[in-house]
């Protein structure tokens, strides 16, 4: 088997994505993974979460409880007697997510025990502890004593710490460092010598473990605490209030670091950020030294945003020159920090990049950002940053890491390809489609073709991407004011998608996550066959945003459907409502079924077994007019929705009424025209743009 780069799934010891198809099954199922950690059903042990009333402990308690309750794994919530109730606060969210009945079932499986910190409650024995997730305060000696306490009574207990900074080597246990918000964020940075059964368990439960190296702090924390530190510096440099700095940081990088600290709880979050930077400073040098403003807030626990009675009065806008200086401070320090993490090989580049997006809310992963700028520009940014903060230059960093950008691991952060000499798999690890994914997808297709592979599956990566949510709408912002940008985006992305149809003999779009929507669905439908597991939900929600689909959703699937199917497609586009994969069989989906059957079928098909599915005829010529009148139930009473529907109808009419060659440009032009319209500006994308881009 050949691959462009190692997949992140392999780093968990779970094999390649191609193996998943070749074996016709997932690498590990949840029941087996639960048994491996907690023992067989007849002798099943419990999971203990210590420090269970803390923000992390309570969040993780709910996350694991929701996933393990159906396997009969008791969840023991252990904390010091008299700890403020953090668990009770979580129940509202649990009910919201699962409904009252299921939430009650989950809660029934949580056993709350108190202890004194020196000895364990005897009642714990009843539940046979197998796995401890330690979430007690960040004091090394306290943590070590805690592990010793458990090991005395339960020598075989598997222990993970959720520490926010200590290396595994110092703690003496493995680490699962979770990302905020702890109730819902699925990412864990795992520090372990070899991928073990606990990591496999997380993966099998639908969580996202990511293997990282054993260093001070974690990838997410270096990014996020580093960003916070840089944001404070930028704020001080410009006397800019934190709330306004947040807006510029959101525009530049993605997250609102100050708002995030306040939302988490300033007292705790300020301490954790300070603690992370303080230890990094001791380890690495002044680049990380906590700024006085952070020390002050760490000590006081004060929020970064002003109190309600001092809601901001004076707006604060900075010139382009000032924005450029702000960018130097923020990116200069983040880039320098990133070279250190690259040098230390803290994680695979793909994972490191994804952590920034999935946990730190970076609009674009840090490595994708570096790559798009190029080494020279990155070095210039760091040099300008050092001119503003000369002490940072005293911290060792590794510019030579940037010279490796042309290597495939750098070039394929989001899209990977593998093949066995006959058939290939292209897998995407980003949930939304953007220009980076577009470029990488083209390179992946080029690579397969260069290897003589003309049959491939296109799918998500079974790890970092658990669903396909459509186009990254932040990419549309330039198109809101410039029609040519809209045409460029739609036409170039469509051209990429068309290669799946024209450059290969057989392509199978394989959808296995929770949902596939919008631009991602448009991409997948360009494959010769579209398979979706029966649990998948599909939708084209563009009309509700509103935007007009740009990647040929308004004519491509119509060319493969019969008249009734075309009406279903039109209904899907005009309502924006989701459709189950099983309901879309025949007019959008070619095959559906249980995941493992479908994996096997897709592999057989791509390996030449034509009996699996018949390829639907694809009509290159103009299609007969769509009978929109035959679609009922569209009256909404919402004038704006009606206008958006009319724009989508017009696009369908024009693109379906044209031949295949003209249709691409026709759809791109309709999409671009709509993007600059007042209606689009009033909608979700326009609102996000005015909130983020036009400060």
């Amino acid at each position, binding site marked *: 088997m050949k691959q462009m780069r190692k997949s992140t799934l392999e780093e968990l010891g779970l094999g390649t994505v191609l193996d998943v198809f070749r074996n016709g099954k997932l690498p590990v199922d949840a029941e087996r993974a639960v048994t491996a950690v907690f023992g067989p059903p007849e002798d099943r042990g419990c999971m203990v979460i210590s420090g269970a009333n803390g923000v992390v402990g309570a969040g993780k308690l709910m996350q694991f409880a929701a996933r393990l309750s159906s396997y009969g794994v008791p969840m023991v919530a252990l904390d010091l007697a008299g700890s403020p109730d953090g668990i009770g606060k979580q129940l509202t969210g649990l009910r919201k997510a699962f409904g009252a009945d299921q939430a009650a079932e989950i809660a029934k499986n949580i056993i709350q025990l108190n202890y004194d910190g020196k000895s364990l409650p005897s009642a714990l024995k009843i539940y046979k502890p197998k796995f401890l997730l330690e979430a007690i305060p960040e004091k090394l000696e306290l943590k070590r004593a805690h592990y010793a306490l458990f090991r005395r009574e339960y020598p075989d207990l598997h222990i993970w710490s959720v520490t926010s900074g200590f290396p595994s080597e110092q703690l003496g246990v493995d680490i699962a460092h979770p990302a905020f918000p702890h109730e819902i964020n699925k990412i864990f940075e795992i520090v372990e010598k070899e991928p073990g059964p606990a990591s496999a368990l997380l993966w099998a439960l639908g969580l996202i473990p990511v293997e990282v190296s054993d260093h001070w702090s974690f990838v997410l924390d270096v990014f996020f605490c580093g960003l916070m530190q840089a944001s404070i510096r930028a704020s001080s*440099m410009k*006397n800019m*209030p934190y709330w306004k700095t947040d807006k510029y940081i959101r525009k530049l990088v993605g997250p609102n670091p100050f708002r995030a600290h306040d939302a988490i709880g300033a007292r705790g979050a300020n301490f954790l950020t300070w603690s992370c930077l303080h230890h990094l400073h001791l380890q690495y040098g002044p680049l990380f030294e906590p700024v006085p403003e952070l020390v*002050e807030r760490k000590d006081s626990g004060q929020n970064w945003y002003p109190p309600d009675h*001092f809601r*901001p*009065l*004076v*707006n*604060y806008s900075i010139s382009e020159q000032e924005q450029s200086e702000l960018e130097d401070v923020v990116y200069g320090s983040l880039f320098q920090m990133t070279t250190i993490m690259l040098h230390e090989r803290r994680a695979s580049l793909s994972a490191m990049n994804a952590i920034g997006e999935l946990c730190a809310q970076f609009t674009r992963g840090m490595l994708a950002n570096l790559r798009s700028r190029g080494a020279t520009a990155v070095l210039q940014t760091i040099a300008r940053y050092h001119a503003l903060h000369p002490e940072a230059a005293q911290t060792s960093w590794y510019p030579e890491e940037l010279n490796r950008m042309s290597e495939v691991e750098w070039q394929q952060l989001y899209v990977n390809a593998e093949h066995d000499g006959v058939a290939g798999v292209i897998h995407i690890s980003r949930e939304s489609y953007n220009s980076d994914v577009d470029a990488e997808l083209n390179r992946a297709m080029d690579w397969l073709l260069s290897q003589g592979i003309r049959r491939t599956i296109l799918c998500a990566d079974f790890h970092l991407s658990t669903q396909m949510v459509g186009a990254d709408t932040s990419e549309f912002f330039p198109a809101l004011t410039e029609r040519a940008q809209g045409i460029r985006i739609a036409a170039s992305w469509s051209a990429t998608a068309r290669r799946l149809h024209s450059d290969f003999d057989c392509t199978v779009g394989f959808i296995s996550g929770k949902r596939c929507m919008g631009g991602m669905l448009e991409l997948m439908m360009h494959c010769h066959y579209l398979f979706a597991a029966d649990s998948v939900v599909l939708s084209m929600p563009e009309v509700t945003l509103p935007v007009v689909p740009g990647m040929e959703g308004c004519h491509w699937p119509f060319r493969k459907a019969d008249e009734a199917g075309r009406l279903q497609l039109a209904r899907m586009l005009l309502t924006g409502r989701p459709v189950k994969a099983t309901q879309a069989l025949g007019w959008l989906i070619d095959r559906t079924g249980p995941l493992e059957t479908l994996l096997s079928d897709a592999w057989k098909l791509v390996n030449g077994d034509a009996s699996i599915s018949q390829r639907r005829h694809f009509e290159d010529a103009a299609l007969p007019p769509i009978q929109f009148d035959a679609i009922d139930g569209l009256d909404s009473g919402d004038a704006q929705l009606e206008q958006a529907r009319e724009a989508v109808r017009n696009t369908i009419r024009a693109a379906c009424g044209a031949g295949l060659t003209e249709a691409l440009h026709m759809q791109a032009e309709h999409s671009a025209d709509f993007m600059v319209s007042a209606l689009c500006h009033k909608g979700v994308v326009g609102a996000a743009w005015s909130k983020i881009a036009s400060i």
Partner: protein
Amino acid sequence: MREVQTIFPEARIPYGTWGCSYFPAWQTSPLAEVNIGQFAGEAMARILALRKVQLQKLDYLVIGSTVPWHYKFWNATVVSMCAGRRIPGFHVEQACATGLQAILLAAAQVSSGASESVGVLTFDRTSDSPVGVFPERRSYRRTEVISDVWDNFGFDPATGKAMLQSAGNIARKYGLSKQEVDELTACRYEQYFKGRSSGFIQRCAVPLEILNAQGKPMGVIDEDKGVKPISLQSLRSMRELDSCVTSGTQTHAADGMATLVVASREGAKALSARPEIDIRFVAKVEVRAGASCMPEAPALAVGQLLKNTGLSLSDIAVVKDHNPFAVNDAVFAKTFQYDWRKMNNNGCPLVWGHPQGPTLTRVVMEALEEAVDLGGGYVLVFGCAAGDVGIAALFKVDG
């Protein structure tokens, strides 16, 4: 030119580290409805950023205001918090002398070695001033209610007279003619609009966008709103409210803020974009005139100051004052046989308004800017304050 000793020898005003909001006339702008202390703090952060002064460089804050504002009890600490920097400081209040007194106290703070760089921040909102309810057992009504701005304008408890009456008194005492006072006023307006069209005013005043409670823009304060050109003919036609006092020959209530920095010698060099310019504090005098004679108090103070320093007005490069009444300038000119056309170039409070606290701070920064344009020299700033007080200070600009 004589060289004289300086007061506060260690203190300097770093050139260019100053700025103010425009002073919109009362009730004409969004400033009429804000917490002016908060506004001043936030505006200071913005203005000093434009001047490339990081708030981190300041270690103390002297604030000045005269009209009570919400949270005033917390004085400089809460205002500095609004600016984004937690530093200590205090509040100073001396009616319309506040803006100058705050600068001088900041210089004392630096010169004493207690601070390295002190922010001066003066502000006031005359629009919708608070109304105080005072239990007064000895008063006829036992409880007195005072609207802070207007009731104080109208009644000096020490004399029982209105401020406006003091201007009439002095006009009569000095035998001023309405014709001259009107001409002087017309000249002041010409000077202001000349300063505006040349861009001089914009060197000190900074446009500021105000946000509503939802964070949406509610207007930009980008002019001294309410100030319109006025002709001599129109001034002549105005009815006298007292001798030589018409609505045209007196200032108007306004809202606004002003800020500057006072630092040590070395600190000033580090903070200023033009470190070669040295601005020192030379002298200061305060006097109190007779009852209800406020407009002559500044001239008395200047006379004392010149006597103390041994200088004459011919030694002074820039003369600028706080002149709520045109009568002030006419008396000054008559006292020193000085051509009133030579003073108050580019504007003065008579024209751009009277927000009390920040008024003399703006006068100082405009006077210093003018001196720098002239290549340096002595700068005389003076004005009157409630209670028949006159204050005068002398600065020296070199470089």
